[in-house]
Structures are given as structure tokens and as C-alpha cells.
């Protein structure tokens, strides 16, 4: 973790890899039905990353990470179970290019896209459009909006997950978001 705080990507990546294994075991035992353990793993990894400034050198890393994991579990239970049910990869499918299927279909797909994204926050919507459709890199999108790159990634990840939650079929409805 200290290497991570110093900006060394290699050791940091190995740390997150190992941590994701620990978290999978942690949530595997504790995750109640209706919550997706892998989503909690991802949420916790995001929190570990974006809030790494709260890690004190000399503190046991696992104690710190588990405290976050526990908070995330309680938070997920509190905010209602449906919210975390649908994984983000299902929403990725919405953004696969229509391919050779012709202009009309593409236009219809674009219109559908406008409709499904209408409930997302405006900035998240723009970020998704720019990175997934217009082909900007996250760095370019970050510069355009004056955000950090990790903030852009987190916003996109959450936006896709919200979409996945909405269109994953029965039982995948979006819970009330408290943010």
C-alpha cells in the first residue's frame, strides 16, 4: 500500500489483486441473498482506491481494508438490496456498435440510448457518451470536465451499473438512491 501511495502502479496492482481475493472470501461468507458479492468487491476496491489517503503508514493494511469492506456491506444493506443486484457488464452491451445493421437501426439504437440514459446525472451521461461512443480516452474526458481520471472512471462505472440495474429484467429495479 505504501508503494501505492507513492504512485507505483505495479505493486499497487498486485495489492488490489490479492485484496480482491480476500474480499471475495469475506463477502462470500457474509453476503446475504439479494446482494451480489462481486459488486461489493468492486465497490470496496473503488473505495480503497479513492480513499487511500485515509490509510496511515504503519497501520495493518488488512485491518484498514476490512473496515472499509464492513462499512460497504452495512451501507449496501442499508440502501436496499435491489440497488447492487445487476453487474455493470450487462450495461456495456448497450454500447456495442450496431455494426453492419444499417443506418435506421443505428438511429433507433441512438434514440433508445438517449431514453435509457435520461435518468442518469447529466455529467455521468456526458462522460459515458464521450468515452463509449465518441471514443475519447478517460484522460481526455477527465481534462475536458476538469475531473481526476479516477473520478471519471468511478462515475462511468456507477453510471453503467445503474443502467445495468434498470434493464437487467425483473428484480433488477433501481432502488432509491440517496446521493
Amino acid at each position: 500500500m505504501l508503494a501505492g501511495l507513492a504512485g507505483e502502479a505495479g505493486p499497487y496492482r498486485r495489492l488490489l489483486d490479492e485484496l480482491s481475493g480476500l474480499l471475495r472470501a469475506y463477502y462470500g461468507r457474509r453476503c446475504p441473498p439479494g446482494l451480489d458479492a462481486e459488486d461489493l468487491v468492486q465497490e470496496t476496491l473503488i473505495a480503497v482506491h479513492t480513499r487511500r489517503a485515509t490509510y496511515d503508514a504503519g497501520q495493518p493494511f488488512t485491518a484498514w481494508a476490512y473496515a472499509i469492506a464492513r462499512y460497504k456491506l452495512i451501507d449496501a444493506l442499508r440502501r436496499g438490496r435491489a440497488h447492487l443486484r445487476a453487474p455493470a457488464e450487462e450495461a456495456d452491451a448497450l454500447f456495442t456498435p450496431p455494426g453492419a445493421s444499417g443506418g435506421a437501426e443505428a438511429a433507433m439504437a441512438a434514440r433508445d440510448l438517449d431514453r435509457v440514459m435520461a435518468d442518469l446525472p447529466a455529467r455521468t451521461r456526458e462522460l459515458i457518451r464521450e468515452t463509449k461512443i465518441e471514443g475519447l480516452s478517460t484522460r481526455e474526458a477527465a481534462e475536458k470536465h476538469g475531473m481526476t481520471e479516477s473520478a471519471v472512471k468511478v462515475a462511468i462505472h456507477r453510471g453503467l451499473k445503474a443502467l445495468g440495474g434498470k434493464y437487467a429484467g425483473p428484480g433488477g429495479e433501481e432502488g432509491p438512491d440517496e446521493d
Partner: protein
Amino acid sequence: MKTDDLIASLSADLPKVAPGAAARRVALGLGLGALGSTAVMLAWLGPRPDIAEAVLTPMFWMKFGYAAITGLILAALLTRLAKPAVRPGALVAVAAVPFVVVAAMALMRYAQAPPEAHRAMLMGHSSMVCPWRIVAIGLPLLAGAVWAVRGLAPTRLRAAGLVAGGCAGALGAAVYAIACNETSAPFLAIWYTLGMALAAGLGAVAGSRLLRWR
């Protein structure tokens, strides 16, 4: 998104984090809050008219010092509570010291004073408004504390809210000391402390909601 992809994307963008970043965030939130609180105090009450002479008296510094030192200790405690799995430790005991010292001084002055002076010592002329003013002046500080702590990772929200409120109340009381012309130690021990306690209670009640983070 697959977890492996997420890990790759998170570790691809890894700005350095300087040691002490969390403490600096708390300091920034409270600093901006203190500016707001001072502006509220100046616009609403103004400094006491005799402030130039008052700063030469020990009582002014006792009031200001009691509130400011309590606030700074609670700010250190708040920084710890904003970090996962960090124990507040001995700071809790340290935070009690200013209260004990001021209570002891108040008891001493009270015991030494003639009985006919007791009522004035306890009630001053502003006891009914003092705690409420402290809470009101502390609100910008509370907002600053909430902003700072939400951006960190508190895992015990009620405790963090209690300390955030207490810290905002104590620093708000230090700001209020510039406007307040009470001069008795028992007054300070009762009404200033009550103001801080009200702010702490407000923080504890609001904390579990306001301090939630994702």
C-alpha cells in the same frame, strides 16, 4: 465491468498521495468553516465594543483558549475517526482535560466569591442566548467538518458526527468569544460548555445521515 478490468483501470491512474493528506483535508474544511463562522459573527453580533482592552485581560484568553484548545483536540480526534480501523486512543482522555481544568477553575472562583455574587457569576447577562449563539456560529464550521470527513472514510458515523459537532461547537465558541463580554469562569464552564454539547448532539444526530459516503 470485470473486476480485473476495474483493478487495471484503477492502478493505471495513480497520483501520489502525500502523507498527512487526510489531516490537511480536515484542516482545510475547518479553516474555511472558521472563515464562514467569523463572517457570521461579525455580520450578526460584531466584536465586543471594548475588544481592544479585552485582549489584554486574562479572562478573554481563558474563554478563547478553552474553546480553541478544545476545538483543536477534537479536530485531531475527528481526523482519526475519519479513517477506517484507526482507534481514537488516548486522544479521548486528552479531550477531557480542558473541561476538567475549566470546571476546576470555575468551582474555585465560585467558592471564593461572596454568596450575593453567585447568581451573577452563574447567569451573567447572556446565559439564555449564549449556547444558541455558539451553535449558530458553529454551523459553517460544522459544514466544513462534514465536507472534509465525508471525503475521507469514516466507518463509525455517529461517533464521527458527535466529534465533528463538538469540534464545530468548540471552534464556534472561540469565534463567539470575540463578541461575548461575559467575565466569569463559572459562566464559561456552564454556558460555553453547553453550547459545545448542543453542537455535538446536533452532529451526532445528523452524522449518521450526513456523513454517509460511497
